[in-house]
């Protein structure tokens, strides 16, 4: 853990050794000045596309960190092509389309025509913008290539988060990176919950505020509390262990309650009217994650690198119960970087989940 940007960048450069990267990915605590860290990392690797974001905690092979910078370098042996762009205003559809067109010009093909088996996308997005759903929805319309990533953090200050591209620092923005891995790659989406067999259907919502006003035609807070058999006053204490999940066949996409306001519940993720939301109960994050990683590594026949977008709510729970070391140990044998996010991206925007990209 270096005390200055300069020391940190020098340390990273030293650890990378003689590699000539075409892509450098880094995640940095918000204690590092955004403009300085982005410039420093870019200047250290002038031949590479350098992308990153601010965090709420970091992960490196086998270790869960705080106030640190973690980085991973890719070269042509791992990623044969990389094209990056920035969405300078994540609330603007035109800005997103501009960033997409820039990538398409760089690779010489529309995203729509790309082979989803040969390409994968990374997305790092402002974690306080509330715009993740729209960006992921549009990207999903445009291509079958999977974009995976996370919402930038700021160490729980909730003031401003940053994404980084080639020496610049941006807020209210997203960085897109399209990668063409040389070998196979795999994706993990893992969350540690089981359904309780109770369905809550939002019957009145304010999508833009991520607000559920009514569940099952009852005030949302009342319906949620009643489903758990607790009072409305006690309900917020259950949020972390009892979020809801958008049911998608055998899987679900977690939506985490944030707070009660009046009789509404505000979420960390948008929900729409009429969706089936399963009430969930937490299970063992370490055991579930270990199983998911081991299975994917077995499927791939090994993993040479792993990028972990790890929800801050999961990180807080692991810290609270003293399981950080056990969690870190899952990644001890795989070159890994990751960060604690303010939201995870995979097909859509998700909460209380880890999305991971693995390279064979």
């Amino acid at each position: 853990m270096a005390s200055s940007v300069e020391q940190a960048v020098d340390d990273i450069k030293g650890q990378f050794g003689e590699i000539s990267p075409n892509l450098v990915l880094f995640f940095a605590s918000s204690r590092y000045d955004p403009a300085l860290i982005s410039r420093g990392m870019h200047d250290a690797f002038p031949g590479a596309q350098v992308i990153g974001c601010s965090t709420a905690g970091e992960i490196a092979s086998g270790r869960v960190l705080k106030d640190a910078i973690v980085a991973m370098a890719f070269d042509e042996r791992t990623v044969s092509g990389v094209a990056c762009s920035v969405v300078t205003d994540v609330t603007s559809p035109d800005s997103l389309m501009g960033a997409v067109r820039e990538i398409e010009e760089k690779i010489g093909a529309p995203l729509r025509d790309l082979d989803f088996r040969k390409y994968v996308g990374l997305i790092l997005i402002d974690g306080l913008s509330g715009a993740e759903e729209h960006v992921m929805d549009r990207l999903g319309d445009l291509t079958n290539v999977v974009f995976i990533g996370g919402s930038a953090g700021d160490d729980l200050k909730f003031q401003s988060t940053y994404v980084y591209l080639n020496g610049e620092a941006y807020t209210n923005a997203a960085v897109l990176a399209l990668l063409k891995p040389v070998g196979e790659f795999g994706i993990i989406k893992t969350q540690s919950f089981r359904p309780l067999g109770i369905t809550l259907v939002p019957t009145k919502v304010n999508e833009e505020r991520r607000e559920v006003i009514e569940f099952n035609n009852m005030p949302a807070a009342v319906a949620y509390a009643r489903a758990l058999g607790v009072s409305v006053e006690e309900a917020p204490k259950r949020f972390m262990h009892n979020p809801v999940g958008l049911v998608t066949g055998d899987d679900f996409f977690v939506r985490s309650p944030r707070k009660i306001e009046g009789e509404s519940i505000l979420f960390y993720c948008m929900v729409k009217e009429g969706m089936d939301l399963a009430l969930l109960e937490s299970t063992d994050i370490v055991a579930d994650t270990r199983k998911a990683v081991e299975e994917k590594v077995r499927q791939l026949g090994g993993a040479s690198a792993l990028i972990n977008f790890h929800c801050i709510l999961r990180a807080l729970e692991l810290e609270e119960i003293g399981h950080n070391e056990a969690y870190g140990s899952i990644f001890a044998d795989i070159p890994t970087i990751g960060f604690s996010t303010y939201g995870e991206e995979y097909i859509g925007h998700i909460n209380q989940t880890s999305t991971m990209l693995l390279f064979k």
Partner: protein
Amino acid sequence: MTGEIKRMIDLIIEKRLNGYEVLKNTTRTKLIIKGFNPDRWTSQSEDDPAKIAELKQIARDMGIEL
């Protein structure tokens, strides 16, 4: 009239797969996130004009001709 919404959803999924069955779950999930759970619409579902208009827009956004 009934069944138009189901027909449109099935067509969007089919055209989006373009022969790659492995994309079926992803495409279904995208539609569920947009508020159209394929399992909740049948050939007996009423043709709600507002929902049909929404689906037409989704198809356009996805570059699909229905």
